[in-house]
């Protein structure tokens, strides 16, 4: 037997709605129903962090909640972090420049986690960066360049006031 619930939420500033099975996770709703495939699905049980998004401004794992629970909330996905013209944002540029990605699977989650950190702490120490990224697994690049990317974006933000 299937059931359905109506869901209405704001995604990257736009009102979106849908009718979903209650068991539809938020990440599946974003990807399958809204076509926002920038958010990746890794482990589907809250370990890898690939599906990180901002829910009402704070980072959460979108595989660890059902779309129905996000009804009425504001979601920001990786697509929402690019510039208005669709080009990469400053933090994404920093990831490219420091070679902070290889296969790129973990990258959307990493960028979301790093963005959330820089929003509340514009001058994080290396330890604070590592703590903020500790819930995101990368299996190929290694974390050194990812930490460098966040440091570079933070330094630019401080110097030029460029937003991540």
């Amino acid at each position, binding site marked *: *037997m*299937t*059931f359905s*619930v109506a869901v209405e939420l704001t995604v990257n500033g736009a009102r979106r709605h849908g009718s979903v*099975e*209650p*068991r539809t*996770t938020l990440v599946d709703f974003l990807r399958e129903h809204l076509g926002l495939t920038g958010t990746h699905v890794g*482990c*589907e*049980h*809250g370990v890898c*962090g690939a599906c*990180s998004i901002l*829910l009402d401004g*704070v*980072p*959460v*794992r979108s*595989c*660890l*909640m*059902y779309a*129905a*629970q996000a*009804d009425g909330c504001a979601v920001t996905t990786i697509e929402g972090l690019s510039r208005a013209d669709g080009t990469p944002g400053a933090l994404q540029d920093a990831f490219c420049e420091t070679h902070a990605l290889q296969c790129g699977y973990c990258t959307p989650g990493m960028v979301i*986690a790093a963005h*959330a950190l820089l929003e509340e702490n514009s001058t994080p120490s290396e330890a604070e960066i590592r*703590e*903020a990224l*500790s*819930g995101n697994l990368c299996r190929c690049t290694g974390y050194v360049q990812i930490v460098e990317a966040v440091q570079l974006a933070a330094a630019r933000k401080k110097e030029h006031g460029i937003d991540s």
Partner: protein
Amino acid sequence: MKAAPFQYARPASIAEACAALADHGADAKLIAGGQSLVPMMAMRLARPAWLIDIGRIAELQRIEIGQDCVSIGAGVRQRAVERNAALRQRLPLLMQALACVGHVQTRNRGTVGGSIVHADPAAEIPLVACVLDAVLELRDAAGTTDMPAREFFLAPMVTAITPEQCLVAVRFPVWNGPRVGSAFEEVSIRHGDFALASACAQIALDDAGRVQRATLGIGGAAPVPQALPEVAELLLGHAPDPVLLDKTARAAAEALEPEGDLHAPAEYRRALARVLTRRVLEAATR
């Protein structure tokens, strides 16, 4: 890794949630943060027919700060506790424990009450609730029952809560006084993972530097979090010198019957319990 189908309800009050539990009982699960339940449903270790979402009930979000007691609503997010400056002062041990709970992403959703009712033997918040001798307020359609945290945990993931009850708040005693120290330590394979073993203590010293009041406990090394009041008594009335702390830490480790598993043999867990207890005793009396 997709949950089995279920029906979803989002009651607006605790009374409505309790009415839904009275209707569906063991076929229903409450969800607030879902940071433990959603993975269990994804792996189909849990297959509730009804999911009752209590994550937005305002009554469950209250924090009441009194002189001798702090009441934290079961639905308060772990991150909200972490960021509450007044709580930092009143419940330092809980704050120290929260730093070890999961990651920012999971603490933004995970709740204080959710961690307690999930009852993982290695979880930090249940251990702190036992060590501080917190009281749990359980409600069902008939009314509210108070239960000491020390009586709540029965076995791994098994508690004394009935299928009709909802944990609504946790009352933590506050220790006032000029010389109260606390510490929480754990060892896990990766930062944010469940602990192989954890230890925590809260200790009050008198003017002469002797232990006036003490509580300690160990997590991850027994089927349920262990408060060890008899061991804490060894400290009372004495200056916390290294010999006493060594002896107390040994007694704490010997009071446990840890089990070995894939991650760590029993003897390693016991050794961790001793070392971590020694560290928290020193840090809490510094």
